[in-house]
Structure formats: C-alpha cells, structure tokens
C-alpha cells in the first residue's frame, strides 16, 4: 500500500487542516466532506481479548476491569502465559497404599521461563486456576475514606441547595445586580453550615514515628545485591496495588482487553467507520474511506531536474475514478482555506492566530494570493440545471457548523509550485471491476486532446500538467498545491428519501499537495 498510493508524495488536505495520504482520509457521505482520524470522534465499539479472540460485552468488560477471564500475562515480561500440565502420584483415598496419577496445572512463560511456582503459587487442579492476583491489602480502608468523602460532599450539596432557594427569591425581587451572572455552581459559603462540626472520619491513616520505623536491617548491608532478584519499574507498575520489590512476589495478571473503535462524523453525527462485532473479522459494517469516493491522484513522472523559481516544468499525473458513476475532473489553482471564524461573531471557536497546532514542515503555510474563493464548494446540480450553480445557503450553514465542531489542525506546509490549469475537463468513466483483469478491454473514446491526456485505460487516465514555481526561496523541495473539482453522485439522498428523489449529482472539490521531487516507486 505504502508505495502504491504514494504515502509521502500525494497528500489530501482534510477539512480540519490535516495532511493525509488518501488511504488515511475518510469521506462523509452526508456532509460530502473529507474527514480524518483527527477530526472525527472516536468511540469504543467492542471489547475483545487479543489472545483468545473472545468478545466481551461492555458491561462485563467493565465489571472485570477490562481484563480477559481466561488469559494471563507474565508478570516478568508481559508475554502471554501458557498452561502447563504435570502429573503427580497421589495415594487413593480408599486405599492409601495404591498410587494413582493426578493432573495438576501451573502457568509458565515460554519467553522468560517464569512459572507460577516462582511466585510460590501451588499448582491447581483446574486449568482455569484460580491464581492469586495482586490486591491492595488496604482496599477496605480506601472504601471507608471514600464513603466519608461522599458523605461530606452530600452535606455540601445540601447546604448549597438551601442557599439557592434563597438566592432565587432575591433574584426575583431584582435586588442583586450581579448575582445572576455567577455560575450556579459557585455560591459563597453558608454561615450556619460553616459552624457545624465535621463528622468524624470512618478511617484515618495511621502515622508512624521513630519507634514504628526501624532503621534498615543488617542484611541490607551484608547481603550481595543481585539485580535480577529486584523488580524493575515496569514490573512494579504492572502491579500497582502491591508494587513488590522482590521478583518472587510478582503475581500473574489477567490479560488486558483490546477495543475496536468506531468513528463518527462530528458534524452530522453519523458513523464513518464501524467495525464488525466479531473480533476475528477485519471487515467493517461501515467504512467510508475517501479511497472509494474521491478521485485518486498519483504522480507518474516527477521532475527530472530541480525546478528554479519562476520556471515552468511538465509533470504527469495519473487519475482514477473509484466510484460507480462517471465524473469530470477539472484542475484549479490551490484554494484551500483553513476553517476560520470571523472573530467577533462567536467566542466559542478559537482564535486562529493564538492557536495553530502542530508544526510539520519548515515554513509557514503560505496561501497564494488568488485564493479568495471559499474552501470547498458543494454545488447541487438538479437535473434541470447545467453547469455550475451558486453557493447554496445549505453550504454556508454546513461550514458554520464545521467551524464549531471540528477540531482544527493547521498543519504547516510549504506550497511553492502552482499549476497552470488546463482549460478542458477530464472525463473518467465509472469503475468497472472486470476491466482491471481484462488487458484487451475496449478503451472508450473521449476525443481527448493528446497534448492533455496521453494515456487512458478504463476508469484511469494520465494527464500532462504544467507547473510553475513561485518566486520564493528555491532551496526547499518543490511542492505543488492543486485543487480538483469533480462530479460526485450522492446516492445517500435517494436512499434516505426512499427513492422519491433521484440520486443527486454534486460538484465537489478536493485539495492536494504533491511533492514533485519524490520518485514514485
């Protein structure tokens, strides 16, 4: 995958400002916009054990503290432990003279050779144990402190509730000018509650004086230190309750579960990716990869010599249409505008000047001067309309919403080459699974200008593009910024309105950054 889709060469600019290769971008079919890992909301979908591939319902996972009931980790090296069987001869209950074989089990690590016998655990008659696990000996005391705290907090809550009744009375009378501006949760203290004595704690940690804290014993000074017998930090931190110092006190722990995640678009709150429930399945119920919806662009021939500022060069791009519908692609100058609010209108969104996450490449993001058009235009084309339409009001509310809910990430990049956009559009036929395997498939004739389209096959085509380097510092690697406009057929609308509406054809834009000096492998 990495070389096929040119991970480093062609980057798509997500709505949030992240730069990602096409296989890491999603396309929300409802918003008709690019989304990525950074700007979607992640949710835990299901819990499973990575070792035994067992699913665990969330409620059970919570109860078992996210640990598998059957698998154990080695406390020494964290590999999965295996169960070993051994036979011993035991006298029969009825006839003590007779010996019979009996199976016993213990845990062993195949990697570091730790066994449950090292921890002093007796062999078990069952394969499932039970094996002793680290436990805080003072857990009960912690519960008592916790109960005490809850009690105090409830006291405080009650005192505040009383207070609020009074306050609202005053408010109604309009006596307190500022009081209603204060958040409800920050009232001033109540005198009568203040004078009440605190209840006595249920548990108080004891203190230790000199007599309770003896000095180190002579063994510490006389015995040789054998480092492998003392636990390392990671070993201790895996058993936080006890944090033993001697390796002999390490106990096996249940294996931690893993999760499958689902992704949700923050704007329309619909799923963008939802895995299948089965832990062994690598398929998805929903997977809206941009790879299936947005034209794929690859660099076929990079620059063969360095591009001097102000000079022109010719590159070849390869286009592919992944959708079931034909599309027409038009090349435009790079016109990505990061999400930004107008400043005064809303305090909620962050000021882009103050807040500009992540530095990625060397220079600041420099937008070419001719980009006054809005970031991505979605133009709805009804069957009656031909050509481009005007920006609908639906789109502006969509962008307003994005400004509020999308986390912004203006990754810095340098874009120092511009495209000289060809006048013609390139029409690509829909993807046809069979044509990929048919070398003699008929290539449709689109009356292409051979100076623009030198090659074509099924849903793919190559294009010549002239690029010009901006008159800036020429020492940086050349990066072409380009915006493509393409047809997208929105089948979701038809599905949701139960076929009343025709599939809607819209004109969408995608913004790309192409590193021109990288050799496509």
């Amino acid at each position, binding site marked *: 995958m990495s070389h096929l889709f040119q991970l480093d060469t062609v980057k798509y600019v997500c709505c949030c400002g992240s730069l990602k290769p096409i296989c890491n971008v999603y396309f929300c079919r409802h918003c008709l916009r690019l989304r990525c890992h*950074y700007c979607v*909301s*992640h949710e*835990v979908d299901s819990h499973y054990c990575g070792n035994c591939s067992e699913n665990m319902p969330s409620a059970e996972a919570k109860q078992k503290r996210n640990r598998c009931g059957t698998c154990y980790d080695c406390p020494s090296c964290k590999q999965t432990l295996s169960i070993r069987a051994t036979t011993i001869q035991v006298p029969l209950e009825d006839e003590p003279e007779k010996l019979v074989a009996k199976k016993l089990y213990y845990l062993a690590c195949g990697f570091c050779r730790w066994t449950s016998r090292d921890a002093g655990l007796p062999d078990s008659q069952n394969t499932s144990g039970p094996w002793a696990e680290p436990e*805080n000996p*003072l857990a009960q*005391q*912690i519960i*008592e*402190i*916790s109960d*005490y*705290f809850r009690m*105090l*907090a409830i006291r*405080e*809550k009650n*005192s505040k509730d009383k207070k609020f009744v009074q306050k609202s009375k005053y408010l109604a009378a309009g006596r307190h000018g*500022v009081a209603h501006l*204060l958040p409800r949760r*920050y*009232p*001033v*203290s*109540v005198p009568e*509650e*203040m004078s009440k004595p*605190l209840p006595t*704690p249920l548990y108080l*940690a004891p*203190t*230790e*004086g*000199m007599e*309770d*804290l003896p*000095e*180190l014993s*002579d063994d*510490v000074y*006389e*015995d040789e*230190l054998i*480092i492998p017998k003392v*636990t*390392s*930090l990671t070993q*201790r*931190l895996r058993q*936080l*309750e006890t*944090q033993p110092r001697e390796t002999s006190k390490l106990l096996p722990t249940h294996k*931690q579960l*893993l999760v499958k*995640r689902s992704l949700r678009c923050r704007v329309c709150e619909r799923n963008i990716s939802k895995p299948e429930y089965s832990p062994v399945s690598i398929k998805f119920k929903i997977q809206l990869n941009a790879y299936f919806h947005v034209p794929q662009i690859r660099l076929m021939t990079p620059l063969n010599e360095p591009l001097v500022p102000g000079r022109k060069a010719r590159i070849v791009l390869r286009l592919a249409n992944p959708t079931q519908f034909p599309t027409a692609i038009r090349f435009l100058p790079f016109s990505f505008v990061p999400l930004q609010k107008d400043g005064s209108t809303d305090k*909620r969104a962050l000021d882009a000047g103050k*807040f*500009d996450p*992540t530095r990625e490449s060397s220079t600041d993001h420099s937008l070419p001067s001719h980009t006054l058009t809005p970031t991505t235009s979605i133009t709805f084309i009804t069957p009656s309309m031909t050509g481009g339409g005007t920006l609908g009001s639906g789109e502006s509310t969509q962008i307003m919403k994005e400004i509020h809910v999308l*986390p912004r990430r203006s990754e810095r990049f340098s874009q120092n080459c511009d495209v000289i956009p060809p006048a013609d559009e390139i029409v690509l036929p829909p993807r046809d699974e069979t044509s990929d395997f048919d070398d003699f498939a008929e290539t449709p004739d689109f009356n292409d200008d051979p100076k623009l389209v030198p090659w074509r096959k099924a849903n793919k085509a190559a294009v010549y593009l002239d690029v010009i380097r901006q008159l800036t510092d020429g020492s940086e690697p050349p990066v072409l910024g380009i915006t493509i406009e393409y047809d997208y057929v929105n089948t979701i609308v038809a599905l949701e309105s139960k076929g009343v509406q025709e599939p809607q054809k819209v004109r969408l834009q995608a913004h790309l950054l192409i590193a021109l000096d990288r050799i496509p492998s």
Partner: protein
Amino acid sequence: MPLYEGIGLINEKHPVVLEIGQAFTKAGFAGESAPRCFIPSTVPCKDNPTQVRKLIDYQDESDLYQMLVDFLNTIYFKHLLVTPKDRKVAIVESLFCTSQWRHTLAKVLYLHYEILTVLWIPSHLAAVCSTGSDTALVVDVGYSEALVLPVVNGVTLLSHVQSQDLGSKTFDENLKILLLENCTNKSKEELEPLLTPEVIEDIRLRACFVTKIRRAQLLSDPSFAPNLDPQLKPFKYEIDGDNFVEFEGILREQAAEVWFKNKDPEGSSLPYMILDCLASCPIDTRKKLASSILIAGGTPMLPGFKARLVRELKKIESELGETKPDFKDEKFTEKFRNGTYEFRIFSCPIKENCVNWLGGALYGASEAVNLRGVTKEFFMKNEIVPDWCNPGCNSVTGIVGVSNAASSPFGSGVGLPKGL
C-alpha cells in the same frame, strides 16, 4: 427491584481520574483503589516512531496541544478503553503547573475530547484526602522539584510552601556522577554513553537505598568512608546483552545523601525544607503538622527513607535545643527552642507514588465532580479554568468563593476553619 438496580449499577459511569505528571502519568477510574495505568508521560516521535518525546519538552502551545491529543488518545483507547466524551474527568494537577499547560490541557479536554465536566484538583489536596485526615504537611518529591506544603483543616497555607530542586532529576544526575566514578570494569568514556536516563532510573530503583544516619555521617567525609563496617559488596548490572557493568557497593547508599546535605551551606536538604516550613507556620499548627507528615511521589519509595527522615528531623531539632552555632538562622533556632516535637509520617492505604491519584479518585467518586467541576459551557464562555492564581477568578466576589472552595478538600462552608 433488584434487576433495575443492577442495570443502574452497570450504567453508572465513573469519572476518569488523570494525573499527568512531568515524568509519569496515572490514569484510572474514580472509586477504584489503584490507577489502571501508570505510564511515562511521553508520546512517540512523529518522525521516528521508535523514539519518544516527553510531554514536558514541548516547544510551544500548539506543540503541547498536539502531544496531549495523542497522549490522551492512547490513554483512552489502549488503557482505559472507554469513550472519552461519555465520562466526566477529574484532573489531579500540580499547584505549580504553568497556566499555559493548564489552559492547553483544558482545551484538549473540552474541545477535542468534548468532555462535559472536568474537576480540577490540586495534587497536594488530593494527597491529603487519601489519608482521611484534613491536616498534613505534604512532602511531594516529584520529577524536577521537591515541595513541602502545609494543609491545615483543609486549607492550604500557600505562603509557607517550600520548594527545592530535589526531585528525581537531581537524584539521577547525582547518581550518574557516582556511577561513573564507581565503575570497576569500564572506563568513564565507555560507560557514559550506556547510562541513558532509563538505565540510571532503573539502577536508582533496584540498587539504591537510604542509609542509616550513623553511617551517613561517616559517608559525608571521604576519609572516613573506608572505615565503614560492613562495606557494601560490589554489584553487577546488565545494561544489555553485551554490557555487564560492575559498580562499587558504596554508591548504593551514597546516592540518596543528596536529600540530606544538612551541613552544606550551599546545598538544600529535605529535613531543612520541612523544618523551615514548620517554623514559618502559625505556632498553634506546628505540633499537629510535625506529626502529620505525608510523603507523596515515587522517588522517596527507596528503602529506609521514612526511617531516616524522622531521625534526621529529630536530630536537627534536638541540636537546635542546644543552640549549636553552625545554624544559619537565629530566628529558626528561636522558634524550635521551646517545646519538643514529635515527627510522625502517615502510612497511607496506597503506595506513595499513587497517593495524589487516589485522592483524585476519592474526589471523583463523590458529588464534588458535580458541585465543583468546571463545565464545558463555562470554559467556552469564559475561556478560563478557575484557579487559585488566576486573577480573573478572584476579582468578582462570587468567584472568590471558587478559590476558597478549590483550596478546601471538604468544600466551601463545610470544611473551612472558623478563623478564615
């Protein structure tokens, strides 16, 4: 209706409790007795995923924002395994974290992870609350500094705080010098590149201890050191498969002396910090505080630490009574002359390195989250997290209540002492 109750119990979503320290981060759920994970506060490097970057090494706010987003993602989906926006969060934070750090963390939580309510708890108050008491002299030995902070009846006496760079960083720097000097089978040049911070930390943890006060006196003078009886045996340490290093045993007890440089006029010492702090506290609180010392932080978990600390304190105090001439401050001597103190250290229901976190978990399990938590709405509107040091929160009468409330583990009104 037992069934209904059962469902309620399962559906109850305990808040997430997070303590992002300079060196380590602890994360878990409120109401539990130990964190679910205790991991280094690092994120993988963007350019080289085999390398890690520490969160505290951030370059600017946007860099920190990005690192925190990545870091919390790991915590939620690799360790806690819960959906971030479903749960409230309790943050246990150092009293002295920068406002840039605080504000950035708030933005990450409220804006990126869409957390609805976050309770911000100062770590020393959390520590006190894990003892069940409301008065303690908190001795927090962190990564870059050691703090001594008195909390009396739930109120932090902030002006009496003592802070010195006696954290694990200083300890490890000192230990490195000792390791280089006391290696028997490798030259300094060979050893130096092998001693990564992780190796030094591991040696600190596995080999070092805090020695007896009598031996420490001998150790401090190099000419006496060979007379120590018994001498510690040399020990071997395996750095990797090719490098077995052998060290003199003496460094095992020497390293921790960095905390007890009482005689050194330039140096700082933990016992002196504690006594300085006590001396500055109101006279009627001193006795109580001296017998309620609370150790927090992972570095002081070395064997022998508590035993040595109480003895050092007692020794200095008794010497003060005899008015020895070599003490820096006359007033200091004056304050301790009348009356003897009993120094006592809390024995917490959890290991010292989780004390702060446990306090957060106790707060998080109570109504305090709802009463004191700062909501997303509030943050969006005001763009601040109410804070004891933020002047914006202390200007309006009503919000003064916040800073009071934040400084009291038992809440405004209920826990406040009569005098304040």
